[in-house]
């Protein structure tokens, strides 16, 4: 039990109207708060960055502190697609399929130079950035990024998730964005 809350960083309730026995706030905020602090990441780790991700998940850095403890290896239950490592052209269609299988709302984090832009591998076999096939929300630079950077990236994603309006995924802008990538 967290009794001495001042020692820990506990998420505060969103602003709202409080009275004896009730608390009113907007649904957006409450849902955003819940979503933000219980992300289920899908680690799509292909190469070196994946090892650094392992270090992030392990005891010293412990991503679990930010509510992203539960790795979801099934795309259907995941909220956050974390692409870590080089994506070769052979892998591209698979990455896209995984993205399509994820249920809305979904976010994408691209970790490392390779996933973001092809990195040092400007070659015939490497996809020059995953944003050619799927939309990306947050890019983490580095080769590989330090675990602190990964955590920072997750926090940026959390900001996005917390502030997102419930209707965003139904807007024509969002549909147009997906259509750009040819995703239904």
């Amino acid at each position, binding site marked *: 039990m967290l009794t001495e809350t001042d020692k820990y960083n506990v998420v505060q309730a969103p602003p709202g109207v409080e009275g004896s026995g009730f608390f009113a706030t907007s649904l957006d905020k409450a849902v955003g708060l819940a979503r933000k602090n219980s992300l289920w990441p899908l680690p799509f780790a*292909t*190469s*070196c960055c994946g*090892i650094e991700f*392992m270090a992030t998940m392990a005891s010293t850095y412990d991503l679990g502190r930010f509510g992203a403890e539960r790795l979801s290896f099934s795309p259907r239950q995941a909220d956050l697609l974390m692409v870590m*490592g080089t994506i070769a052209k052979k*892998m591209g269609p698979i990455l896209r399929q995984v993205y399509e299988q994820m249920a809305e709302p979904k976010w994408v984090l691209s970790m490392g130079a390779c996933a973001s832009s092809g990195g040092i591998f400007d070659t*015939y076999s490497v996809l020059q950035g995953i944003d050619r096939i799927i939309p990306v929300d947050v890019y983490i630079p580095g080769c590989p990024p330090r675990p602190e950077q990964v955590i920072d990236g997750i926090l940026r994603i959390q900001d996005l998730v917390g502030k997102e309006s419930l209707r965003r995924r139904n807007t024509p802008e969002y549909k147009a964005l997906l259509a750009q990538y040819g995703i239904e």
Partner: protein
Amino acid sequence: MNKEIIYTGENKFIDPVTGQEKEFTTLNLGPTHPATHGIFQNILKMDGEVVLDAEPTVGYIHRAFEKIAERRPFYQITVLTDRMNYCSSPINNMGWHMTVEKLLKAEIPKRAEYLRVIIMELSRISDHIICNTVIGVDTGAMTGFLYLFQWRELIYEIFEEICGARLTTNIGRIGGMERDFSEIAWKKIHKFMDEFPDKLREFEKLVTRNRIFMDRTIGCGGISGQNALAYGFTGPNLRAAGIDYDVRVMNPYSSYQDFDFKVPVGTNGDVYDRFMVRGQEMWESLSIIRQAIDKMPKGDFHADLPEFYLPPKEEVYNQMEALIYHFKIVMGENDVPVGEVYHAVEGGNGELGFYLISDGGRTPYRLHFRRPCFIYYQAYPEIIKGGMLSDAVLTMSSMNVIAGELDA
């Protein structure tokens, strides 16, 4: 198990035991399966839970290392080698530097070689920690992973102090080290050497004689020594099958002949043996590091190779000669001998070889990497045939197949 299975139709086969026709299922494992620790695809033919046949597909992170290497000057290739076996990048770096030094016929001072040995053995430990704890995770012993990774971080901190990076290290230069170890680095190494043995012992206590672990791993995914040789196994996987081939002993490089260490071997080549061989190797690595620290000679940390070794920055700014060499190195105008060399080091997974052809130009004419994973992973279908599906997963993690090395 060793009998050829006869397929009679689209999804039918003849059960070799009963002689009756049966149906098999096709199972697609990967390429993004959580149990595969990387990007491997296997199309399995299953009879119930027994694997009849497997067809691996690789190449999902093919990055064209060999092609890039033909377009990069020698000193820039270190960066590529980092990303090959990323669990133990420094060994790859050193292997590459030694290959070029062999081409140049350079003499490396003892101190540089000893420093290299320390780094290489540290990275061997970090490689084996990953493999062994992941075997633990796959058998349900998550504790070991979470526990030993704390001390693996210490190794990363040492690397960070020495070269500035954690994972993709780029340690060392052609001709030696880029700088000597700092006071802080030595302190960190000593700290690691003091703390790690206890923790490793604790981890071993937790796992090695654990009944569940032993029942799970003994006799699972075994390969005979004969077969292992035929399939080109090297490194811990070959030694687990009972063949004591270690490049460090056979063709000593970087002064390994000065150190006293054992080469652990197994008997059955199964998951347990691989685990034990890797575990023992960590102890041997620790002892090598200790010997290297004790015997550390005084002297220079790099060879006198002005044509290849970047001069210190102060000299570049103040002296003509250093400036010229700096310019020549960076612009790639140095004279490389024509010739071809092969140099092998004992990487985390086995014999990591570099075959370099130089035509005297700025870049290698051809550079071929002998990647141990790529060669031994082709035996995987052979090993898992006739076993359970869950054993197949365990076998893969115990073989320590690193995707970056596999696909180059």
